């Protein structure tokens, strides 16, 4: 789960990290009121993705009217697929210097890494590419965390020695997001040094490991409902499915992440555009297939569905029966192509054929078939053909 900025800042504040005064506003009136208490503010869109500024999701307001107008524009905006549910109005900082500070998982090292740089405010990936020498790294021991002297060394190495004490102390506090919240990323960029010499979190990113959600039910309760994500992904989550929305029109169901991803690749290769990724797991039980189809059919863009299942321990004939039942229960009329492989696949294919479902022998054939069936008959790529079915 990626927390919104104001949520991440609440967590940071609970760890003892200074944050600027700020107020959440759900309406333009609340943004205007925020100006009255805070003075000049940055009105910031709250979405769990980067690049808000470039998308027009951050505006400075020097009057109550400007704050109201900014909130009016930003709330409800779509930023990279996320509708902005609310804005965070935050007092402006008297910036002397901007620093980068972040913990993240270094997959290659199979470890957490602390990245620190005197050049803050930039995108870290861009910084890593353009001036790798400006980044200092520390791999803290995962059992005891970073030690004071390690952090002090890092601060001096980065040329920020004059702020050694507050910075090292702040890093130690930020590290606590890892053991206490299962943070995969805990980033403050920029970390602002003010002219008064204070160190304050200008922005905050916090991603909590979904695998550890059971340890942090409080966070999910407090923050989970605010993030307005994709409606199909939310419905799929309720039904216990592994589902990712994509922007095409061919629904995809597969069992196993790798098999499902390779099915998307094949549909794309055949000239189609997948509407989703949906992994129903190893067993491919009938009710899971039905749940998957139900979510996929919610999407009005979907013009056909491809199911690709390998029957390992589950037999192909059982999978086929489950698919037929699911289709009938849902009264599904869209084209459906099913590709079964593995145990008892011939029996499974026979059952599909008897029930009017197109069985694909190879995954590639099946992908071509569904792309053909879900395209309009005339003018496959032409504008007039696209209209009817949707």
């Amino acid at each position, binding site marked *: 789960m990626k927390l919104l900025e104001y949520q991440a800042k609440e967590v940071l504040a609970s760890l003892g990290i200074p944050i600027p005064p700020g107020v959440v506003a759900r309406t333009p009136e609340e943004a205007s009121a925020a100006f009255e208490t805070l003075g000049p503010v940055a009105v910031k869109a709250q979405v769990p*993705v980067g690049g808000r500024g470039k998308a027009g999701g951050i505006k400075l307001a020097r009057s109550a009217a400007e704050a109201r107008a900014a909130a009016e524009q930003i709330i409800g905006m779509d930023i990279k697929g996320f509708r902005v549910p609310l804005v965070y109005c935050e007092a402006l900082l008297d910036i002397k210097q901007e620093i980068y500070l972040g913990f993240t*998982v270094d*997959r*290659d090292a*199979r*470890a*957490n890494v602390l990245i620190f740089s005197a050049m803050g405010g930039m995108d870290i*990936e861009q910084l890593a590419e353009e001036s790798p020498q400006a980044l200092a790294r520390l791999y803290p*021991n*995962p*059992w005891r965390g970073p030690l004071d002297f390690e952090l002090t060394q890092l601060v001096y190495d980065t040329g920020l020695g004059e702020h050694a004490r507050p910075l090292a102390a702040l890093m130690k506090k930020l590290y606590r997001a*890892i*053991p206490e919240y*299962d943070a*995969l990323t805990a980033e403050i960029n920029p970390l602002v040094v003010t002219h008064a010499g204070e160190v304050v979190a200008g922005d905050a990113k916090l991603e909590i*490991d*979904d*695998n*550890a959600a*059971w*340890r942090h039910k409080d966070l999910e309760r407090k923050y989970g409902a605010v993030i307005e994500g994709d409606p199909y992904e939310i419905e799929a989550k309720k039904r216990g499915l*592994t589902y*990712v929305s*994509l922007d095409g029109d061919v629904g995809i169901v*597969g*069992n*196993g*992440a*790798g*098999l*499902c*991803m*390779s099915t*998307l*690749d*094949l549909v*794309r*290769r055949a000239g189609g555009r*997948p509407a989703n*990724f949906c*992994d129903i797991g*190893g067993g491919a039980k009938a009710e899971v297939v039905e749940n998957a189809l139900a979510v996929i059919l919610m999407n009005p863009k979907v013009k056909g569905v491809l199911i690709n299942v*390998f029957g*390992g*321990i589950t037999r192909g004939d059982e999978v086929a029966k489950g698919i037929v039942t699911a289709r009938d229960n849902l009264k599904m009329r869209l084209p459906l192509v099913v590709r079964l*492989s*593995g*145990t008892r696949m011939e029996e499974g294919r026979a059952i599909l054929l008897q029930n009017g479902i197109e069985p694909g022998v*190879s*995954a*590639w054939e099946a992908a071509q078939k569904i792309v053909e069936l879900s395209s309009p008959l005339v003018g496959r790529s032409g504008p007039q053909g696209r209209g009817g079915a949707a």
Partner: protein
Amino acid sequence: MSILLDASTRVIVQGITGREGSFHAEQMQALGTQLVGGVSPGKGGTKHVGVPVFNTVADAVEATGATASGIFVPAPFAADAIMEAAAAGITLIVCITEGIPIQDMIRVKDFLRGYPAARLIGANCPGLITPGQAKIGIIPQRISSPGHVGMVSRSGTLTYEVGSALTAAGMGQSTIVGIGGDPVLGMSFSDVVELFEKDPETTHLVLIGEIGGSDEERAAELLSRGSRLKTVAFISGRTAPEGKRMGHAGAIISGNRGTAKSKEEAFRKAGVAVAETTDDIVGLLT
């Protein structure tokens, strides 16, 4: 021959009395795996699927001389189970459990540095099988047959599919290793490839990767330094969008890192054939 596991390996199952543990312990026995015991705290002294159950891994190792373990315990307890196995002297630890918190695995990886003889496969993996001899994990026996193709993969069902195709084409396998779909894993592609290089019975190699991380790139780099194996690589997730986890916790493109394109290019540069689809693998291998 084979790598890591053969008919003489003495194996235990941690979590043997659970539903998954029971079922797969029996499947392992059916293939001929030397299952010598199981672990289930509180059930020591009983028998399950015909083998003695112990309270701890140390007890099981002392009584049975086991050197390998398959872990089927639930995610909240799995990290501890891995460390318990290593501390008890198990040298091949195969963790099937899905959903272990990443921070738990980071601590496990650090802990395992103190046990250099212990090899961890997984977690979130289907395990490994040496066809006709033994398996630890959940790979269906039917997809495999004894032979000379080594297989290593991050994906479960995709491995089964390719294994079935190889088997149908008469190309048996020496050992099939599923290294798992998590971002912080035990053995990497490179670790497994090194073992296949040293196994005289393995002449061919199929490597099935996916988006996320750069373990494939590192394996390509290893193969580029000289390999006696005829290798085909396949990468899934060419069309996956940036920033989305595609089913596996580790299958995510971050910025411009971890793309299928980067992995495919690394293999091509290393002189390794890259299959466009899984259907092409058999043809490229012959």
